[in-house]
């Protein structure tokens, strides 16, 4: 296990270097310089001021120097200052928004798995029944529904038409004065729609995967053996089959992380949630390149960490890897 862990950690190094290289390339190889972008809004800025600003951000140096400066700062978690008028450090901006996005996505991930596993088991154990067909229809719709459209529909029906749920932000104005219970209830009501939207997209894929994984396991010899020795179907499915069917889902959880983080741009923008996705969108719209670059790197590192956790959990759950390495 230790060897496996060490190997896995060493593999991270080239990936991390690659991530910084690609982020840097994306920002610097795109036509138009960041400072020009910032200046384009303000035609009054002269050449001299432009050069001064370039020097201030170190943009007058050769690319490789800029890269090493940037990575050097990145290692110290210094992501530079935002181009926006407040000029705050990007690190602080991300730090105050990261918890919102991560907790939202963790809730969404839990909900996804909580629903997809039973749905997948049901579809697999009732294969080819009307139930299975119904689930298949749901899965295909789930793949095809654009998340932002779903968000709009929910907003219209639950928020505008029936007025059951608040349609934006995380808190009602003045909720600071509420008691704890009422405060949390208020927060929960604000979270329902975003979490639904965030989890819906991957729910379909996950259920389908769970179904095929389960079918795969049920078809194996040891399940036939379990049935042959007279175990009840319940025990066969939930005790013998389920464990093995769940294994590939661990990896899938790791893979679904970039999708979740990327998707947060959409639902955070629509529901006005002050998370990383919204910050990114604002950064993109105002061409605030230190923010964009910072979030791009952080988003990729989060994926990397997510995959690492998934791999380690897999190794812990699967004795063939745990003891093999």
């Amino acid at each position, binding site marked *: 296990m230790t060897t496996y862990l060490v190997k896995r950690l060493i593999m991270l190094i080239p990936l991390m270097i690659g991530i910084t290289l690609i982020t840097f390339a*994306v920002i610097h190889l795109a036509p138009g310089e960041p400072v020009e972008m910032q200046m384009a809004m303000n035609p009054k800025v002269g050449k001299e001021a432009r050069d001064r600003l370039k020097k201030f951000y170190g943009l007058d140096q050769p690319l490789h120097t800029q890269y090493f400066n940037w990575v050097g700062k990145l290692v110290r978690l210094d992501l530079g200052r935002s181009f926006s008028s407040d000029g705050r450090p990007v690190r602080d901006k991300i730090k105050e928004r990261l918890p919102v996005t991560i907790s939202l996505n963790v809730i969404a991930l839990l909900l996804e798995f909580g629903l997809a596993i039973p749905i997948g088991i049901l579809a697999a154990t009732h294969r080819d029944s009307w139930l299975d067909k119904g689930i298949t229809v749901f899965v295909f719709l789930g*793949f095809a529904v654009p998340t932002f459209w779903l968000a709009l*529909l929910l907003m219209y029906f639950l928020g505008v038409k029936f007025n059951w749920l608040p349609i934006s932000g995380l808190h009602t104005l003045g909720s600071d004065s509420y008691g704890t219970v009422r405060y949390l209830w208020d927060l929960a009501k604000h979270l329902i729609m975003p979490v639904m939207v965030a989890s819906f997209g991957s729910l379909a894929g996950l259920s389908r995967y769970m179904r095929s994984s389960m079918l795969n396991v049920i078809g194996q010899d040891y399940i036939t053996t379990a049935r042959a020795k007279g175990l009840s179907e319940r025990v066969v499915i939930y005790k013998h089959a389920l464990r093995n069917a769940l294994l590939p889902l661990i990896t899938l959880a790791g893979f679904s992380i970039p999708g979740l983080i990327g998707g947060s741009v959409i639902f955070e923008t629509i529901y006005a949630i002050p998370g990383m996705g919204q910050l990114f969108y604002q950064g993109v719209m105002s061409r605030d390149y230190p923010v964009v670059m910072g979030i791009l790197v952080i988003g990729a590192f989060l994926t990397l960490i997510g995959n690492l956790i998934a791999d380690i959990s897999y190794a812990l759950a699967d004795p063939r890897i745990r003891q093999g390495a």
Partner: protein
Amino acid sequence: MAGYKSSYFYVVFWQNLKRNRLALAGGCVVALLFVVSLLAPLVAPSDPNAINAWQVLSPPSWQHWFGTDELGRDVFSRVLYGARISLKVGFVAVGIAVSIGTVVGLVSGYYSGVIDTVLMRLVDIMLCFPAFFLILAVITFLEPSIWYIMMVIGLTGWMGVARLVRAETLSIREMDYITAARCIGCSDRRIIFRHILPNAMSPVLVSASLGVAGAILTESALSFLGIGVQPPTPSWGNILTSGKDYIEFAWWLSLFPGLAILVTVLAYNLLGEGIRDALDPRVKH
């Protein structure tokens, strides 16, 4: 699926596909979309950009099947023209992704060793980035244009194809006919493109069809956020942007373009799954 594919392969493939009614339905919708896109000026009841100040935000009626938008433009015509954009985006973006992915996969699988390691690490790195973040970041620094969107969606979506083609190439490389080709002195290039490529393409067909669906979804999300296709050019995503702004008064602005996306993406997915099943010798109908 060993060996060079004879016409028999395609006959069986077509027979399998024909029996799958859902896939056929998907295919029909896709064909219909092609026709509609080509004939949009003939089919559309009015000019998609014709402004009518007297009929702002009017609900669906005989005259305007899908109602009108905040400038009095006919939503039905705009949705029809929107089909052009999504079709173009779907095919060009996937074309780019498939070309890059296929070449990377072929080279990686055929040469193995250092080249393979480097290319596959590149795939791993690219997969670490939330694709939507990467696309947004690139588009930030470019003038908004549909060509950039197609390029960027393609450039960030080739990794899956590369892995697929590499896996196929690895197994095809060991076949006798490849050894034979090498013995008679074929160049690497000829072996890769003439002998391996045609046999490695079938799984790519599936992921291309699913990829078109994904690209259409991405484009509509980008346009919805105001970073994609710029108004007044109609796209399903940017019609939905005004749908969001007028959601309290005009449900039709949100409903119809969304349904158009849903049906189109569903059709490509059904077609893709159908092709997968038809190619898979294990699936019996």
